[in-house]
């Protein structure tokens, strides 16, 4: 049991913090969002976009420092935002629990076949990065990320919607969805491969929803760093409801053809619950947009002789 003095200090600290959090939004100037086509208001300060979504609605950041409310049972529904940490969440160096950063502890346990397949991939990130015009990353040609990469690269806002027989997960990145069947079925044996595979899920305990996926198209990369997988890949996802406002995702890769043992690709990445009216921005791979990007940046920056 804490001493009274320590407890009082904690109360004072949290009270002050709460007061500051309440005051700070009021101190922000109330700027109307700019209208598109607004005639040359060059001298006006742009609106604070971190506070306004694409509908012009204010986005209230979750307050910090409050005691977390208890997790509801058997419930991972909601709109979940993991933030934008480039290593841990966006996965710029590959699966964030085992990034491709050259460190020995992050070397994956490749089989000989796994290493051979790894060397065929030419990623634009991580230790083996190549120039944009030299990559064979399927995603830059707007192929689907598929599984497990949808969890391991550009993991953005998720919306989880339970139905009587499934859990549907909507992903901001790529604007895709997955259906995880909860009706007790087994994974199909030797099915037609899908980019996103086939998924089943069940509650392991009151707060942990575990998903198994297989039947994944071999063309997908495991992550941005170009780690390979075979048709035998099994992916386990553990969605753990920590408290009312937090969810954690852990992803494990199991592919005996490519890796001598299973490895954890994502380790308890935290998500914060958003309000029900939180607008999720669109993030799509548009071939037209990519062609424009390659014309202006990707191709010229890859030219080797500077001409």
């Amino acid at each position, binding site marked *: 049991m804490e001493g009274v003095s320590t407890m009082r200090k904690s109360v004072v600290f949290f009270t002050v913090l709460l007061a500051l959090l309440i005051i*700070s939004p009021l101190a*922000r*100037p109330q*700027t109307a969002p*700019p209208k*598109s086509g*607004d005639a040359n208001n*060059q*001298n*006006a*300060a*742009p*609106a*604070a*976009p*971190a506070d306004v979504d694409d509908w012009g609605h204010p986005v209230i*950041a979750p307050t*910090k420092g409050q005691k977390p409310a208890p997790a509801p049972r058997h419930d991972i529904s909601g709109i979940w*935002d993991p*933030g*934008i*940490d*480039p*290593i841990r969440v*966006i996965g*710029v*160096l590959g699966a964030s629990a085992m990034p*491709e*950063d*050259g460190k020995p502890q992050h070397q994956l346990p490749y089989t000989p076949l796994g290493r051979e397949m790894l060397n065929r991939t030419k990623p*634009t*990130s*991580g*230790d083996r*990065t*190549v*120039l*944009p015009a030299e990559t064979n990353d399927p995603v830059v040609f707007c192929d689907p990320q598929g599984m497990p990469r949808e969890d391991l690269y550009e993991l*953005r806002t998720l919306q989880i919607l339970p139905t009587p027989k499934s859990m549907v997960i909507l992903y*901001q990145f790529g604007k895709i969805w997955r259906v995880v069947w909860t009706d007790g079925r087994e994974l199909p044996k030797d099915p037609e491969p899908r980019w996103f595979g086939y998924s089943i899920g069940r509650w392991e305990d009151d707060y942990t929803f575990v998903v198994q996926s297989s039947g994944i198209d071999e063309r997908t990369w495991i992550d941005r760093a170009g780690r390979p997988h075979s048709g035998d890949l099994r992916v386990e996802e553990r969605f753990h409801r920590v408290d009312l406002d937090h969810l954690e995702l852990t992803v494990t890769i199991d592919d005996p053809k490519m890796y001598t043992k299973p490895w954890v690709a994502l380790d308890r990445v935290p998500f*914060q619950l958003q309000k029900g009216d939180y607008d999720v*921005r669109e*993030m*799509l*791979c*548009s071939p037209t*947009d*990519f062609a*424009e*990007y390659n014309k*202006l*940046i990707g191709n*010229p*920056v*890859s*030219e*080797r*002789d*500077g*001409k």
Partner: protein
Amino acid sequence: MKGRFLLCVALGICVLTLSLPLLAHHGNSAYEMEKSVTIKGTVTQWIWANPHCILQLDVTDDRGQVVQWSAETENPSSMVHYGYTKQSMKPGDQVTVTVLPAKNGKPIGRIVEVVLPNGQKLAGRGIQGPTKADDYPKP
């Protein structure tokens, strides 16, 4: 040609050499990771799109030659957290941009910072931008 271009970049603009903390092998190997260049020019286009936003600006050297630069950021969903919007810049705006320049000497870069006509600064994510929701710049 390349030498003249490099001279144009050096003259009449401020060249900053920053010691940037490296995220090992982060992102694109096409850019210089350990030095940046600051250019001033007139916006010709601000493309607010996936995969990356692109700022195009005309930079005039001391001989009056105009070089079109293309400077990229991250995607819009990330950039809103650094203060950017679709309306942040428009053709005609005079801006000052600090970039990590392309290794091959082309007028292409990855944005580290933009200073808008009204003096407001926008950080590119680059290497040093905020990385967590908690660190979004406050107006």
